[in-house]
C-alpha cells in the first residue's frame, strides 16, 4: 500500500502545483486571475483610498497638511479597532450590534472604578472583563441557544444603553482623569520612537517572510520568487518611512509649541492587527474560525468544537471593542451615557467596505483596517470641504451599499466558476 506519509520522500511535487511556482510575471498573472474569479481581496478598498486621497487633496488645501494627516490617523484608530473587532464575528457570518454600547458600558466601569481610587490598570482590566463577560453571554445565546445574533445583539444594544444610563445618570459628561489613558490619542512617540517602530515592523515582516521560505524549502517545496518578498518589504519600508517622516515634522499651528511624532495609538493598533492576523492565519483556532464561517456542518464533522469557536469569536469581538472604546474616551476625555450607539454601524461598514464578507468565512484584519481608513477619509475630507454631517452619512451609506453589492456578486461568482 502506498503510504503518503512516508518520511524522507522529499521530491518536489511535479504534476500538482502549489501556486508558488514560476517567476514574478507568473505570480502577477496568478494574482490577476484570482481577481477575475471574484477574489478581490484588498483591491477595491486600496483603490478607493487612492482615489479619495487624490480627490480631497485636489479639492481641499487642508487635506494634505501635516496636521490633518496626523488627525486622520488618530480619528481612524478607533474605527479601525472596532472594525477589526467585528471581523471575528463577521467571519462566522454573525453580527454584534451591541459592540459599541458594550464598549461604552465597559468604559463607564473604567470611569467609576478609577474615580473611586482604583489604580487605572485594574480599572482597565475590569473594563476588559466586562467585554469578555458580555461576549460570553452573547456567544452563549447565539451558539448554544440558537438565537439569531442580529436579534440578541440588538437586545443587548438596547439593554446596555439602559445600563449606561443607570450607571452614569442622564445627560452628564464625566471627565476621565487618567493621564495614561489621555496620552494614547493625544501624545506622540519621541521622534526616534517612530523610526524604531518602522524598524520593528520591517524586521518582523522580513523575519516571518524568510522563516516561511526557509520552512518550505526545508520540506522540499517550491517558493515564490524571493523578489516578491523583497518588493513587499521595500513597499513597507518606503510607505512607512514617508508616513513616519511626515508625522515626525512639526505640525503645530503656533510657533511657541511644537507637536511632532507618531501618535501613541498607532503602535497599539499595529500590534492588534499583527496579533490578530497571527491568530487567524497561523493557529488552529484561526483555521477553525474560517472553517466554521465557510461550512459549519463540515467543521462539525471534522471534529471542530463549533460552539466553542463561535463563543470565542463573540468574546474576542466585544473585548477588542472595549479597546476601541478606550481610544474614544482617550480622545474626548469624558464618558457619557449616550456613547457608542452609532459607531458600530460604521464599524460593520468599514469591515465590509474593506472586503470582509457578510456571508462569513472571507476577510482579513488588514481589509477591515483599510475599510476604516476609507470611511475615515470620507468623513474627514467632506468635513474639510464644509459639507454637513448629513452629506457624509449619505456618501458613506452609498459606499457601503456598493461594497455589500460587490460582496454578494463576487460570492456568487466565486461559488460557481469553471466547471471542467
Amino acid at each position, binding site marked *: 500500500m*502506498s503510504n503518503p*506519509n512516508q518520511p524522507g520522500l522529499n521530491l518536489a*511535487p511535479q*504534476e500538482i502545483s502549489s*501556486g508558488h511556482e514560476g517567476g514574478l510575471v507568473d505570480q502577477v498573472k496568478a494574482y490577476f486571475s484570482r481577481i477575475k474569479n471574484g477574489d478581490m481581496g484588498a483591491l477595491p478598498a486600496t483603490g478607493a483610498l487612492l482615489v479619495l486621497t487624490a480627490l480631497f487633496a485636489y479639492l481641499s488645501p487642508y487635506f494634505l497638511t501635516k496636521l490633518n494627516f496626523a488627525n486622520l490617523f488618530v480619528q481612524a484608530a478607533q474605527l479601525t479597532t472596532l472594525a477589526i473587532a467585528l471581523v471575528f464575528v463577521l467571519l462566522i457570518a454573525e453580527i454584534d450590534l451591541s459592540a459599541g454600547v458594550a464598549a461604552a458600558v465597559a468604559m463607564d466601569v473604567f470611569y467609576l472604578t478609577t474615580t473611586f481610587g482604583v489604580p487605572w490598570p485594574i480599572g482597565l482590566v475590569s473594563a476588559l472583563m466586562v467585554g469578555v463577560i458580555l461576549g460570553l453571554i452573547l456567544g452563549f445565546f447565539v451558539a448554544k441557544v440558537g438565537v439569531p445574533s442580529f436579534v440578541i445583539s440588538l437586545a443587548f444594544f438596547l439593554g446596555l444603553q439602559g445600563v449606561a444610563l443607570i450607571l452614569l445618570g442622564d445627560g452628564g459628561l464625566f471627565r476621565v482623569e487618567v493621564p495614561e489613558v489621555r496620552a494614547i490619542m493625544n501624545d506622540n512617540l519621541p521622534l526616534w520612537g517612530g523610526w524604531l517602530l518602522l524598524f520593528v515592523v520591517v524586521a518582523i515582516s522580513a523575519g516571518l517572510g524568510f522563516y516561511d521560505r526557509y520552512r518550505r524549502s526545508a520540506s522540499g*517545496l517550491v517558493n515564490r520568487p524571493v523578489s516578491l518578498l523583497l518588493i513587499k518589504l521595500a513597499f513597507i519600508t518606503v510607505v512607512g518611512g514617508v508616513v513616519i517622516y511626515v508625522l515626525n515634522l512639526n505640525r503645530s499651528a503656533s510657533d511657541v509649541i511644537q507637536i511632532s511624532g507618531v501618535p501613541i495609538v498607532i503602535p497599539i493598533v499595529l500590534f492588534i492587527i499583527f496579533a490578530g492576523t497571527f491568530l487567524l492565519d497561523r493557529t488552529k483556532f484561526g483555521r477553525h474560525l474560517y472553517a466554521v464561517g465557510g461550512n459549519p*456542518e463540515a*467543521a462539525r464533522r471534522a471534529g471542530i468544537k463549533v460552539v466553542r469557536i463561535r463563543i470565542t469569536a463573540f468574546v474576542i469581538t466585544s473585548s477588542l471593542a472595549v479597546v476601541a472604546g478606550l481610544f474614544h474616551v482617550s480622545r474626548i476625555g469624558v464618558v457619557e451615557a449616550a456613547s457608542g450607539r452609532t459607531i458600530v454601524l460604521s464599524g460593520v461598514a468599514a469591515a465590509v467596505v474593506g472586503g470582509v464578507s457578510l456571508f462569513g*468565512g472571507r476577510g482579513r484584519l488588514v481589509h477591515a483596517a483599510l475599510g476604516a481608513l476609507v470611511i475615515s477619509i470620507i468623513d474627514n475630507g467632506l468635513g474639510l470641504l464644509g459639507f454637513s454631517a448629513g452629506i457624509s452619512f449619505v456618501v458613506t451609506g452609498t459606499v457601503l451599499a456598493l461594497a455589500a453589492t460587490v460582496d454578494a456578486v463576487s460570492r456568487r461568482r466565486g461559488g460557481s466558476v469553471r466547471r471542467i
Partner: protein
Amino acid sequence: MATPVIELTDVKKGFGPVEVLKGVNLEVHAGKVTALVGDNGAGKSTLIKGLSGVQPYDSGTVLFEGKEVDIHDPIQAAELGIEVVYQDLALCENLDIVQNMFLGREELMQRTLDEPSMELQATQALQSLSVRTVKSVRQKVSSLSGGQRQTVAIARSVLRNAKLVILDEPTAALGVAQTEQVLNLVQRLASSGVAVLIISHNLADVFKVCDEIAVLYLGRMVTQIKTSETSQNDVVGYITGTKSTEE
C-alpha cells in the same frame, strides 16, 4: 478468503415501532470495491450511519478486522480507520484543498500551523491516487468542479490512512467525464489496499467498478454476490423484490 475488514452479522436498527434494518449481514474486504444498492428507503443510509458511529445499531455483531467492536461515536469510527465521504462532501468552500484535507487534524509546529508539512502530505496523497485533474493544492475549493471536490474528499480519507472508505452516492451529481474520473479514483483507492463500500443507484457504474454487490430490500440483505457471477437484470430483480436468493 482473508478476514474481511468489516463483517456485520444480524444487525438490527429500529426507530420506535419501525424496524428499518431487520437483521443484516455484510462483508467488506480489503482491496475490494463493494456496492451497496437498494431502492429508496431500503435502509442503505441507516446501515452506513451505524458503521460511521453517527447512529449506532440496536443489536447484532460488528467485527472489524476479525475483532468485535461496538462503534458508538464518529471519533471511535475514525480511530478504527473508517472514513465516510458524505454525499454533500462536507468541504469548506472558503478554504483551499490542503486546509480542507487537514481540517480538524491540523499539524502543528511550535503551536502554529505547520503549512509546509501539510501541503507536502496533501500533494503526496493526491499523487498516490494519480490525481491529475487538480491543478494546485492551494486552490480554494469554491473554484473546483464537482468531480474535483469529490476527489478532494476521497483523498482526505487516504490521508487519514483509512482502512474502510464508505462513499455515499459519489457520482450522483456528476457528468459523464467526471463520473469516469471518480470511478477510476475509487478503483485506485481499492487497489492500494483499502476496503471500499460504495452506495449507488447507478447500476452501470456499479458493474463497471465493483467487485461485489450487496442488495438491501426493505431492511433485509437479499444477497451479496460477486459482480462476475450476476447480471444487471438479476440485480434489478433483487432491488425491486421480484427475485430472491431462495428460489
